C-alpha cells in the first residue's frame, strides 16, 4: 500500500479552484517529483498534505491513517516533515537549536520537567543535543552549529532546513524546490544528500524546477497544471508528453 495517498483531493478558495480532484500516491522508499509551471498548485499540494489547508473535498491518507483535517503539528509529529520554498528557519536561533527544535515532537519532557530540570529531562536534552550534532554532521554543517541560522550562507540554510526536517525522524520528507538558487556544485551535493536520506529509509517527495536534477534522482514524475494532474510516469516519458510540453510552452500554433 502507498505511504501517502491523495484521493480526489480538491481545494477551492471561493470560486477559485486551486487543486482539482487530484489523485496521487507516493510509494514507501521512493523518490518522486512533482513539476509544473509556476502557479500550478504544487506548493498548495504540500500545504494540503501538511494541514495548512484542509481539503474542500477528497481524502488524504498517510501510513494507513486519514490525515486530512488534522492539525499541522499532529501531522508533523505523525511522520511528515518538510522544507519550504522560501527558507523558513528560526533565524535567530543557532543552527544546533534549529535542529533540536525539529526533535520537539520526539521529546517527552513536560512543563514540570522543563521547570525543574529533572534528571530525566537533562538526560533527554543531552541525547537530543548529540543527535542534533549528528544530523548537522550528516548535512555537513557541524562546524557552524553555534551560528545563528540567519548568518549562514544560502546553500547552508537549505541544508540546515533539511537537517531540521530530518530531526523529527520522518517517514516522508517533502522538499519544496530544494535546489532553487543553488549553483551546479551545490546541486551535485544536494543530489548526493537526497540519495543518502533515501538510504536512511525516508521516502522523498519533492517539488523542483531543475529538470536535470529531477531526471537524475526521481523514479517517478507527476505534472500539475492549473491544479490538475496532466501527466504521470517515468521521467523520460513525461518530458516527451505533448500535454506537458504544451503546459510549459503553450499550444503549437
Amino acid at each position: 500500500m502507498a505511504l501517502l495517498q491523495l484521493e480526489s483531493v480538491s481545494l477551492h478558495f471561493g470560486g477559485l479552484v486551486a487543486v482539482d480532484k487530484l489523485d496521487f500516491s507516493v510509494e514507501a522508499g521512493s523518490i518522486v517529483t512533482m513539476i509544473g509551471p509556476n502557479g500550478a498548485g504544487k506548493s498548495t499540494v504540500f500545504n494540503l498534505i501538511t494541514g495548512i489547508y484542509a481539503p474542500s473535498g477528497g481524502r488524504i491518507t498517510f501510513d494507513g491513517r486519514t490525515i486530512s483535517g488534522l492539525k499541522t503539528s499532529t501531522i508533523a509529529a505523525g511522520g511528515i516533515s518538510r522544507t519550504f520554498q522560501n527558507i523558513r528557519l528560526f533565524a535567530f536561533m543557532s543552527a544546533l537549536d534549529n535542529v533540536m527544535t525539529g526533535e520537539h515532537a520526539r521529546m517527552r519532557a513536560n512543563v514540570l520537567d522543563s521547570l525543574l530540570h529533572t534528571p530525566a529531562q537533562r538526560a533527554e536534552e543531552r541525547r537530543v543535543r548529540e543527535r542534533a550534532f549528528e544530523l548537522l554532521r550528516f548535512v555537513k554543517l557541524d562546524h557552524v552549529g553555534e551560528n545563528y541560522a540567519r548568518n549562514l550562507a544560502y546553500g547552508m540554510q537549505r541544508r540546515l532546513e533539511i537537517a531540521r526536517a530530518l530531526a523529527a525522524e520522518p517517514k516522508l520528507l517533502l522538499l519544496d524546490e530544494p535546489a532553487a538558487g543553488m549553483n551546479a556544485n551545490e546541486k551535485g551535493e544536494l543530489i548526493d544528500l537526497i540519495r543518502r536520506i533515501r538510504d536512511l529509509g525516508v521516502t522523498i517527495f519533492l517539488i523542483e524546477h531543475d529538470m536535470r536534477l529531477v531526471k537524475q534522482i526521481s523514479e517517478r514524475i507527476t505534472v500539475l497544471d492549473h491544479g490538475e494532474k496532466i501527466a504521470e510516469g517515468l521521467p523520460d516519458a513525461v518530458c516527451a508528453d505533448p500535454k506537458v510540453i504544451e503546459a510549459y510552452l503553450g499550444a503549437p500554433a
Partner: protein
Amino acid sequence: MGRLQPYALFAAAIVLPLVFSNGGFVNFLADAGAFVLLALGLNVVVGFAGLLDLGYAAFFAIGSYTFAMLASPQFGIHIPFWVMLFVASGVAAVFGILLGAPTLRLRGDYLAIVTLGFGEIVPQTFLNLSQWTGGPNGIGSLDQPAIFNFRFGFQALPYYYLILGLIAVAVLAASNLRASRLGRAWMAIREDELAAAHAGINTTTTKLAAFAIGASFSGLAGCAYASKLQLVSPDQFGFNVSVAVLSMLVLGGMGNIPGVIVGSLVISSLDRFILPQLTNFMHGFGISIDLTNSRFLIYGVILVLTMLFRPEGLIPSRQRKAELRAGPDVLPAEQTLYTEAAP
C-alpha cells in the same frame, strides 16, 4: 556572565537592607521587588514567546484579589499566606489560559489590542462586583504572613526577604524553562509560527503555557504585594501598571533575565527616588514643576530614547541584540540566488 555572578548578586541583595536599613529605603526595595517579579512573568510571555500582552496587570489584579478574598475578614476566610501563594498563582494561571485561549489566532497588533481590553475589563469587574470585592474601597486588613509565631507585621524588612525569595524562585524557573524543550518551542513560535507547527510543536498548548506561566508569576507578586500593603483596590491595577512593566522589559532587554531585573529596578527607582529628588532639586532653584506628575511623559521619553539609541535594551540577550542590530538581511538569500544560480 560568570556562573557565580547570580549567587554573588543574590548575597548582595540579602545584605543590602542590613547596610542601608532606612525604613523608607527597605520599603522601596520590597515594592520594587514585586515589580521585578511582574517583569519576570511578563518576560515569559513577551520576551520568550513573543506574545505582546498589554494587559498584564489583569493577572496581578487577579492574584491580589484572590489573596484578599481568601485571607481577610471580608468573608472570614483565613487561608495561610504560604498556601495562598500556590492558590493565587494557580488561579492567575487559570485566568492566563482563559484569557489566552480566545487570542490564540491573533498575532502582533491584534493580540496587543485584545490583551489591552482584558487589562481594562478585569479591574473594572473587580470595581463593579462590590458585594464581593468592596467596590472602589477594595478589601482591607488582609492577613499577614507568619512563620511559626513570627508575624510579618508592618515592617518592610520581612516582606523584602519574602519577595527576594520569590524572585529567586522565579529567576530559577524562568531560566530553567528557557533552556528546555518548552523554551525552545516558545522561541521557535516567536521566530516563525508556521515553521514551528511543521516541526511538530503544538502552537496552541505552547502559547497557553506561556500565558499560564507568565500569569502565575504575577499571582505570586499579587500575594506578596497585597499582604504587604494590607489592602487591594481596583485602582492599583490600571493600564499604567501594564505599561510600566512592559517599559521595564523594553528598557532592560526583553527576553534576558538580568536585563529585565535591571530594567525594573531602574524604572522603580526613577519613580520613587529620581523624580522626587529632581523635583526637590529644581524647587531649590525656584522652578516649581512636579516631575512625579509627568512620570508617564518621562517613561515615554525614555522608551523613545531606548528605541533610538539602544533598541535591544540595557542588558540584552545575544539573540535580541543580533536581531535588532543585524539590519536588513546580512546575507540576503536573493543576492546569493542571483549571483550563484546556474544559467
